């Protein structure tokens, strides 16, 4: 079996579920012949035809609104937004309708939609193509926010998201789309939602992260191991609802925590994790929780974006802070 990239794992999961479930329908801009701007839907039009792989007019609110209506009829739409920076016209539809329709009708109607979008910086794209604004979705009751960080997790979590009976915002770290390859059996096995994945077991410090920052965090853990520091690495994976229990259990063990995310710091998801550790795990802590995040500024255009993204050095410096705190 050939190793595949994260974006190929997305395609593999979509194709698997479309073969299995005729209610799964894809819609979005350029998802048909073009296979999407990142080729995540490549080949699906040929296999499943234009009724189930639908190129839409160019209007993001429309994509979301259509998906909501389709889902209420029992279809399982997977809607693609080309970049997270373009999702905001759909925010009203997602927040006011997708997240609420089950609650508003006390379960009579529901919204089993997956809203997929690439997100994050680091691919030298134009302006508005590099945002990490997961927190503005994680704040909304009724939604799930899921972020894969490897080909295998992309496959398993996307299958789980399509099968989930509620709306899922599925954020694909574009920086990782073609970064690493991995063997991903096309066995249709979903991974669980609503739980963190412990990618590396350690005893001295807990590193909590998700999405593209998993890459730098694992690299930092390798470096720390050489220095004799044993880091536990937790990939949050489902940002909402947040599996705080796994994080707390780890912090209880290590006594130290560094949270790493690419999104801007203020009101980022790291703030919520840090607050929950303070509320429920203060007695475990041997040092204050540290955050390594993007800056509170607009993600810069291509030439400066590398400076914006947190790097391994920053993670190591934060770990040094918590290890040396006294």
């Amino acid at each position, binding site marked *: 079996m050939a190793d595949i990239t994260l974006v190929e794992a997305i395609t593999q999961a979509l194709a698997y579920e479309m073969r299995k479930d005729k209610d799964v329908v894809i819609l979005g801009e350029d998802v048909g012949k073009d296979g999407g701007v990142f080729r995540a839907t490549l080949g699906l039009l040929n296999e499943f035809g234009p009724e189930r792989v639908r190129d839409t007019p160019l209007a993001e609110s429309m994509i979301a*609104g259509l998906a909501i209506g*389709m889902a*209420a009829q029992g279809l399982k739409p997977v809607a693609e937004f080309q970049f997270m920076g373009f999702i905001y016209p759909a925010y009203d539809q997602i927040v006011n309708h997708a997240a609420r329709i*089950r609650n*508003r009708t006390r379960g009579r109607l529901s919204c089993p939609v997956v809203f997929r979008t690439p997100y994050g910086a680091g691919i030298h794209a134009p302006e508005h193509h590099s945002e990490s604004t997961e927190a503005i979705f994680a704040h909304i009751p009724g939604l799930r926010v899921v972020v894969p960080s490897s080909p295998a997790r992309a496959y398993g979590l996307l299958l789980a998201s399509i099968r989930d009976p509620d709306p899922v915002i599925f954020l694909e770290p574009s920086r990782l789309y073609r970064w690493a390859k991995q063997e991903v059996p096309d066995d249709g096995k979903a991974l669980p939602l609503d739980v963190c994945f412990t990618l590396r077991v350690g005893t001295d410090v807990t590193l909590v992260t998700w999405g593209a920052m998993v890459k730098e965090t694992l690299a930092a853990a390798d470096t720390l191991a050489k220095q004799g520091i044993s880091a536990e690495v937790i990939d949050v994976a489902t940002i909402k609802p947040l*599996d705080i229990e796994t994080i707390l259990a780890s912090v209880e063990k290590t006594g130290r925590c560094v949270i790493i995310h690419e999104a801007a710091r203020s009101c980022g998801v790291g703030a919520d994790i840090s607050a929950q550790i303070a509320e429920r795990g203060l007695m475990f802590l041997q040092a204050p929780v540290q955050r390594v995040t993007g800056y509170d500024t607009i993600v810069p255009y291509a030439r400066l974006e590398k400076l914006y993204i947190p790097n391994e050095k920053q993670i190591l410096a934060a770990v040094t802070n918590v290890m040396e705190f006294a």
Partner: protein
Amino acid sequence: MNVVAKFEIPYYQCLDESSILHGNLPDSVKDTKQLVKLYRLMVLLRIFDTKAIALQRTGKLGTYPSTRGQEAVFVGMGAALANDDVFVPYYRDVGTLIQRGVKLSDILLYWGGDERGNCYHKDSEDFPYSVPVGSQPLHGAGIATALKIRGEKRAVLVTCGDGASSQGDFYEALNVAGAWKLPIVFVVSNNQWAISVPRSAQSASQTIAQKAVAAGIEGEQVDGNDVIAVCDRVTLALKKAREKNEPVLLEILSYRQSDHTTADDASRYEPQGIREKEWLKEPIGRMRKYLEAAKLWDEEKEKALQAECSVDVEGVVKEYLNTPPQSPESMFDSLYAKLPDIYLEQREQLIQKEIVAHG
């Protein structure tokens, strides 16, 4: 110079302001029982509406949007819908919903602040009112997409007001309905006001119906004080949608004979005298006069109907007021198919809060 596009917008009316029928009764509304039924529903709607406002004024109902003067629009649409069509309403569509199996007591329950008013009945595929104005035409287009994918001969009817026709989602829905040839009918119930902003300030477009033209679909105006025309034009449009996948935009013209909602005071902006002038075209009196001339109605029947509707509405109010409250935790229980464990603690805290509060 070459002219590359031209358009015209037809206006449909059957029963004029003097209750004179022009031409024959249309096929969809030629049954006399049907004519009387439409009239009876309009009368019921007005009596219900008057009662709902009274309930709000006495603190027994929340903010409520009146349907006064627009009865023909909602009743006519409801009569045109087939049972297995899907209806996506806006917040004044009471007269349509009651023909979709929704109980009047549930409509009061909704405006009384209780989500269970949106439950309708368990087999209903109809949407609840869209409160964010103008977002629902896209849901209608999505439903129509699903019907078309499955090859079902059903149609969607989606409604909104004249103000909503300025929303981007409205245009996006018309556009995709045209591009994808969806089985959908869009109705703009143009009552001349979006709260305080008059139709003339909403758009420079001569008609709202012509907004269909840019989407490549048909648009027409209908006299919304003429229940026969409304019922007929919506029936034909739905048929076209079902059988030919040809979407239609209907602009149905009436006048809001009320404040925007009970939270509004139209005397702050509505020119004096206009409401009285528009009242001369009002739909119920117009239809009654026609039915009486056709010997289908008389004073005695009218008295009996008024009494019957009043009794019915009193019963509805009683049922509404006697509805047991929702449990506090119901605010969590339909949030997801299964509430994620992480929120169980908050749900429990809420239950405890309630015990303390009433303890």
